């Protein structure tokens, strides 16, 4: 019976969400942008595949000494990289739109008092509300993924089993990201008496953790890690710095070893040895700050799912490149802290919501 009551609340909340104008509009926008970016991603994938095939044929036919070296086959997961960018913005807005007035509106219209006069416990109400919201966001995510997969199939791109699993994991990670902001907005809705205030508080947190925290992390890294070691004079001009960017927020750099005539230069090697702890220290400092940002965690984990190679390079810039493409499990293993943070962040806000709702004055 207790579960029936919870389900009754969840069913109503889910129905309210998926029939609300604001949900339909934002979801529609999300799906349209999703479809366009997937289409672009598929075209890019096909181009890459074509280049790969040509290169593959060339290497098989030629007597080139590097013929044993094979370029990695493009993955259809590249298609989903573009989803990350708008998921963090539109998806975040969708999650906030669902949660920011879930409790405060009931306080404003006094329907909460009416509801509580019927045989239902407060925890069943708040859990039901959370479940309804999660269901609506799950539906939005499922629709986005379904459209993506349908488009892949329409363009004759058939995912392998591993790729299909990766797509599902990408969906789960994206949903976890949406839940983070849903949880924030639900908490603010419970804390605030008015929906307008709840929305403002949520947006403040949204921008603080999505923009301020990463900036703060970079500033803290600059301040605490000190100046980077100087490269050897003779090789300054030969330093290669590679920058990996993801949707404008993610920036990381690594240096490449310089090898001459098959022998590594000792001065350069020494420089690398000094650079390694410096980079590690910088990353450690910025990671501490970034771990609190759902955006950063999402980028990190989603990158590990969609592009394990880049993810591995970001995490271990000084490790020798493996001959084999890192597997999904390895890539996810490297970002376990970010995965944990994606779970802990919404859980903490849900817990705060629960405590506040249970103690709420309903006069």
């Amino acid at each position: 019976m207790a579960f029936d009551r919870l389900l009754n609340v969840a069913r109503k909340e889910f129905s309210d969400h998926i029939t609300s104008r604001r949900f339909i509009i934002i979801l529609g926008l999300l799906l349209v942008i999703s479809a366009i970016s997937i289409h672009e991603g598929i075209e890019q994938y096909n181009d890459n595949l074509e280049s790969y095939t040509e290169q593959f044929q060339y290497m098989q036919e030629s007597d080139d000494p590097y013929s044993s070296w094979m370029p990695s086959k493009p993955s259809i997961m590249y298609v989903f990289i573009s989803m990350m960018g708008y998921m963090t913005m539109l998806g975040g807005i969708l999650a906030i739109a669902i949660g920011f007035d879930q409790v405060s509106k009931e306080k404003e219209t006094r329907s909460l008092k009416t509801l509580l006069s019927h045989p239902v416990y407060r925890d069943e109400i708040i859990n039901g509300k959370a479940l309804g919201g999660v269901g609506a966001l799950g539906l939005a995510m499922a629709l986005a993924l379904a459209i993506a997969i349908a488009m892949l199939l329409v363009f004759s791109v058939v995912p392998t089993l591993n790729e299909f699993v990766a797509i599902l994991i990408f969906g789960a990670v994206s949903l976890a990201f949406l839940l983070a902001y849903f949880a924030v907005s639900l908490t603010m809705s419970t804390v605030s008496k008015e929906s307008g205030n709840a929305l403002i508080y949520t947006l403040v947190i949204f921008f603080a953790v999505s923009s301020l925290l990463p900036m703060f992390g970079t500033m803290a890294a600059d301040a605490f890690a000190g100046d980077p070691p100087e490269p050897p004079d003779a090789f300054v001009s030969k330093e290669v710095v590679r920058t990996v960017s993801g949707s404008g927020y993610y920036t990381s750099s690594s240096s490449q070893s310089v090898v001459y005539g098959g022998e590594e230069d000792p001065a350069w090697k020494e420089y690398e040895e000094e650079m390694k702890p410096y980079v590690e220290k910088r990353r450690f400092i910025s990671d501490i700050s970034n771990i609190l940002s759902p955006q950063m965690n999402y980028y990190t984990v989603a990158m590990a799912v969609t592009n394990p190679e880049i993810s591995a390079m970001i995490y271990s810039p000084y490790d020798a490149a493996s001959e084999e493409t890192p597997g999904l499990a390895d890539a996810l293993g490297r970002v376990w802290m970010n995965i944990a943070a994606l779970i802990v962040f919404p859980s903490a806000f849900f817990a705060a919501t629960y405590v506040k709702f249970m103690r709420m004055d309903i006069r």
Partner: protein
Amino acid sequence: MIRTENLTKVYNGKPAVDGLDLEVGEGEIFGFLGPNGAGKSTTILMLTGMIEPTGGRCFVDGIEVAKDPLKVKEIIGYLPEDVGFYGNMTGEQNLDYFARFYGMNAKERKERIADLLDLVHLGGVTQKAGEYSRGMKQRLGLAQALINDPKVLFLDEPTANLDPEGVREYRDLVSRLAGEGKTVFVSSHILSEVRAVCRTVGLLAKGKLVAQGTLEAVARTLAPADGDAVQIVVETRERLPEIEDPEILAVERNGNRAIFRAKTDIRDRLAASLFEQGVHVREMRLEEPDIEDVFMAVYRR
């Protein structure tokens, strides 16, 4: 049916309800009177299991509310003051949502909701509750309070938003529900409203129960002591003559009419004296304390 023992609720160090001892019998229509802020709504919230008392206990049908609020909620109906609904749903959908908490099956819900909507004259209304007038919301509130066919009905300021016709219908409904053996607990600060429907009342002021009983008994209890004086109203056909009686304290004359303030009820002696003087008596009665005045005096305290 309803009992409280030293019921207390403290908000921010201030007692909203202070050691309330109350008893309401089965089938009674009980009026819970008091000025705004007296603690009426807080008491109802504790009785309906929506907030926990700071001290004391309350029982509904023998069930201690704080220990088993869900069981209590299953047998009560509650119409909150300024009742609220889900504006994006129709009245029927709102009632269906609430009815599901009572484990009613689809057929039961449909029949019950149709009956209740007809009862409150909202049958066939397809508007969303957000578009309802305040009176319509109040009527829908009454329907939701009756959704589970409750044994005890708590009504907080039930006529606040009703038009005169709605008030009349509400009064008929409450009388009918009491006739069916239901206990009705009406909270209001409007004496005339309570007077119209309630058989017994309790008067709350500053969180404390000032008096409980029938309206007249409560009024007598609360009337200013004024020694033990009684007031006797007399009207005669002829001019009222001088009357000598050691019990008379004062006389307020107005032509053929006078109000005697006396130590005791001397109507028999007054009547005899007037008869002896050949004066025809048109009216002679003991003046009861004015209930409105008595209650207003308590409200102003």
